[in-house]
Every structure is written in C-alpha cells, then in structure tokens.
C-alpha cells in the first residue's frame, strides 16, 4: 500500500495536490514545445508516406500510407546508403584506433609535448571544413584517392578524431590510477595494461565516442560533396543534395530517402540515450 493512502486527509493532502497538478501542466507545456521542435521530423515521415508524384497537397495525416516513395528511394539511393554505411563504419574503426591510445597517453603519461598536442586538437575543431576540403581535393587528386571509400573514410575521420580524443581523455582522467599502477607493478606491459585494463574500464566513453563518430561520418556532406566527382562512390547525403538540387517533383521519394538517412540518429537516440547524453555534455562523462 502506498504512503499517500495512509496520509491523514486535510492540509497535507491538499497541499500536495496543487503542485502535482502544476507539474502535469509543465508536462503538457513540455509536450507542446517538443511537438513544435519535432514537427519537421513528423512532416518528413508524413510526406514520405504520400503517394508518388503528389506535389500539390500533402495531407496533414498519412491516413492511407503509400510506400512507393520508399520503393523509389531504395532503388535509387540503396547503393548510396550502403556506401554511407561502409564509410561510417570504416571511419569508426579508424577513429577509435587512433583516438583511444592517444587519449590514454594524454591522460596518463608525462609525455613531453602533450600540452601542445591537446592545444592542437582544440584548435583543429575551429578549422573550417572547406579549408580542409580545398587542400585535400588537390592532394587526393594526386594520390588517386578521389571517388574512393578509403579516401572518404580517412577524410570523414577528421570529424570524429578530435572529439573522440577529448571525450575519452576526459573519462580516463577520472579513472583511478591505482588500478593501472597495480597492473604495471604486477609486470603487465604497456600493451597488456592498455588492452586488458584501460580499454575495458573506459567502455562507456569508448561507446559514446564510437556512436558520435558514426553519426558524424554518416552526416558528412562536405567531403562527400568535394571528394567525389562521379556516382561510383556517393554517400546518401550527396544523393539527397542532388535530389533537391534540381526542381523536385517527387517529394515523397526525397522524404523517404531523408527518413532512411535519419534512421541511425533515431535508433541512437532511442536505444543509446545514455551515451548520447554523455556525448552532448562533453567532458562530463561519468
């Protein structure tokens, strides 16, 4: 039996009803704000379910959902979605392989020049992507890396590596050093300490960094736009851009592609909420 039923009716009960109601009013207000913020997302899903070729009137509700937009999207953009997936997964691997050891070194070792490296990482986040793309295009052209998945993986990793290093390092800073020292005293080498102690202990920050790295590469538009010139290798972001670059007469397939391109973000927000929250608050990973 809950406590409230045992409470003596009167002042206490009366006082608790009013704030309770006020709280629910806040929830209603919050729902309203959320509805406004998420309307474009709703509209994207709604428009994706309209019959092909309806340019004039999209009904406010998808009462008779039509999946032909998705059929067109998959047939025209399916390959690009796979490209995006390969590039994003590849860039997660590259980012983690580079960022995790670096974060460990920056958090634990008294390496000379660590301050400089950290400073460079912070500053690198301020460099406009177009500057990087401008120089990479000419270099990639010489190296034959244009229109290639490895080329995109390497370039896209630049979205994630500084972020991943900073977030994993922030976590490792808070890790008890006694554990690592104990392992070292027991004779474990650097590599063994790193792989069997440090990495398992930092699991949460690694997952957070990996998820965000995936999202950054998946959302990449700049390098897709500048480092590919043919439709051989074409991430889905560029596919959408080319859809809307011309006059659009079939919004339902554009919106269906947009929905498909949003799936990673939606899945992560629903299933990996705690990691996403950790990533958005930056260094405050606990």
């Amino acid at each position, binding site marked *: 039996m809950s406590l409230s039923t045992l409470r003596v009716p009167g002042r206490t009960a009366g006082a608790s009803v009013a704030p309770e109601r006020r709280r629910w009013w806040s929830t209603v207000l919050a729902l309203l704000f959320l509805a406004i913020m998420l309307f474009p997302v709703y509209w994207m899903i709604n428009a994706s379910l309209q019959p092909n070729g309806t340019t004039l009137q999209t009904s406010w509700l998808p009462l008779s959902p039509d999946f032909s937009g998705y059929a067109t999207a998959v047939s025209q953009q399916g390959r690009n979605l796979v490209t995006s997936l390969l590039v994003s997964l590849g860039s997660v691997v590259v980012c983690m392989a580079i960022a995790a050891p670096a974060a460990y070194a920056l958090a634990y070792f008294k390496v000379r020049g660590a*301050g400089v490296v950290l400073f460079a990482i912070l500053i690198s986040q301020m460099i406009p992507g177009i500057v990087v793309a401008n120089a990479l295009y000419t270099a990639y052209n010489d190296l034959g890396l244009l229109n290639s998945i490895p080329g995109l993986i390497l370039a896209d990793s630049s979205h994630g590596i500084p972020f991943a290093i900073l977030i994993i390092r922030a976590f490792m800073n808070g890790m008890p050093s006694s554990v690592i020292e104990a392992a070292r005293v027991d004779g474990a080498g650097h590599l063994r300490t790193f792989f069997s102690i440090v990495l398992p202990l930092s699991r949460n920050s690694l997952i957070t960094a990996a998820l965000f790295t995936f999202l950054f590469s998946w959302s990449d538009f700049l390098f897709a736009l500048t480092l590919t010139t043919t439709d051989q290798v074409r991430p889905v972001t560029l596919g959408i851009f080319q859809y809307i670059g011309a006059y659009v007469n079939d919004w339902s397939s554009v919106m269906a592609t947009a929905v498909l391109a949003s799936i990673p973000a939606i899945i992560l927000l629903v299933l990996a909420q705690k990691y996403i929250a950790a990533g958005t*608050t930056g260094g405050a990973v606990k």
Partner: protein
Amino acid sequence: MSVTADLSRPDHRHVVPGARRRAPGNRGGYRQRERIFQWLFLVPAVLYMALFFGYPVAKNIVMSFQDYTTATFFTGEAPWVGLQNYVSVLTSSLFSRSLVNTALFTIGSIAGQFVIGLALAVFFRRRFPLNGILRSLMLLPWLLPLIVSSAVWRWILDKDSGALNRFLGDLHLVSTGVPWLTSTSLALIAVVGVNIWIGIPFNLTILYGGLQEIPDELYEAGSLDGATHWKAFRHITWPMLRPVVNVVLVLGVVYTLKVLDIILGLTNGGPANATQTIATQSYSLSFHEFKFGEGAALGNVLVLISLVFAVFYLRASRRAVDE
C-alpha cells in the same frame, strides 16, 4: 561538438612505477624505452592531425599565393601570383555581401538559438513527470544529418505547397504563398530560422547542464531575501551561468561561421547571392569556378576570423574552469 576541455587544469599525470624492481644501472635505458613506448601511443594521432589538419592549413596558405586552377592538375604548374588572389577576392563586390551575410547569419542564429535554448533550459529545471525523456527527445533535430534537415525544410518552406504557407493560409494570415527561399529579402531570414531550429538542442543541453551545477541552496537563500523568478534569474542564475554561457556562445559562433550544408541545401547561396556567406563563396570559387587559389585565399580569411573567436574560446573555457 561540445567538448569543453580545458588546458589549465593540471592533468592526472601518473608516473608509472614500473622501474622500481630493475637494477639501478639499468634505469636510464629503461626510462628511455619507457618514454618511447609512451610516445608510440600518441604517434598515430599526431600523424593524423598533421596530415588532415596541419597539412591542409599549410597547403591552403601556399595555394592562396598561387594561380591554382584545373590546369594545375594537368601541367603541375601553379605560378606564384603574390597577393593577387587576396586582392581580387577582397575587392570583389561579392565579398562585402558575403561578409555582411556571414555576420547576419551568425549573429541571428546565435541570438535565436541561445535565447530559446536558455528559456527551454530554465523551463526544464522544473520537476515534472517525463522531464528526462522529453528533454532528450529534443535532441533529435541536432542529431539528424544537416542535409536531411535542409531537405525537410525545403519542403516545409516551399512557396506553393509547403506546410508553413498552408498553415499560414489556413489561419488567413497570408493570401498568397510566401516565397521564403526564393525571395532575396526573405531567404536569409528563412535560413537563419532553420539554423536556429538546428542549434536549439545544443544550447539547451549545455545550458541545462550548467544550470544543474548551481546549488539549490543559493535559490533557497535568495528566496528568503525576496529574490524569486526574474530577480532570482538576474542575481543568481545569470552570474553563476556566465562561464558556461561564454563557452556556448563562442563555440556557437565558431561552428556557425563554417556552416556550409544548411545553406547549400536550402538555397545554394541564392537567390542572387542573398544567402552567400564566406564559407559558401569559398566553396563555389574552388569547386564551381575551379579557382582553387582564390578559394584558398577566402578560406584563409575565414580561418582568421575563426581564430579570433578561438582565442575568446580558450580564454572563456579557462575562466570557466577557474571559477
């Protein structure tokens, strides 16, 4: 993104006591080996940063003094032209337009994102059912690929059948479709509006985090002195939040300055350059007109502007830690 790492806080630098059991004569060589091993952990990151951030910045500086065009790719020759790229870029009529647009876009976006983000952050400090889940769902616009958001808003803002015009029409606020993205006077406002929508979640999250750090006792003490609502905000919340505010604003400016996706997706810089910014103009110089030298020169101007704010950022984040 939102990493507010600090440089001033002393690191947990642990001297790993592995050398203890070695013979004293061996110590020097062991230390050296140890140091090399430690550096090896850092080497891949340093190499990557040098290749994908250091090299592009350096290469851009070099290119900005060269006549670097498509011909360069075939002949391998890029003649030195001194400051000519800078002169032609900075004196073109388009530059002043882009500069003004960049300023308006940045100030408008930041102001909108910040005010709405702060208002929502204060609102979400209330305790009410479902607070956590509703707040985290607010993040969605920020997690979507920017080009997806651009595509969706293109459709919402469509002149003839967009949802916004239909909504306004149903309310009898407008009689004909408003050309949000195709009118030279409205396009920049529409682009700013979309960018505000994208930036609200980031501002909300960081500011909410900052608000949570303010101890409740301050408000309790304040309310005894009659500081409630607006007064409490002015005299308690705002001063306590200042360090976080500084970081959010400077980061926001730096990220907004380099925005490309949203503008290219919504208007492609048009109509008639009404939404052209320094970033989009640099892109179009390099990748549409194939004047890579001029594109590099304009890109460097953007780097310079960002660097000014980067200095602010470093000072703000250092202060955020000190306080």
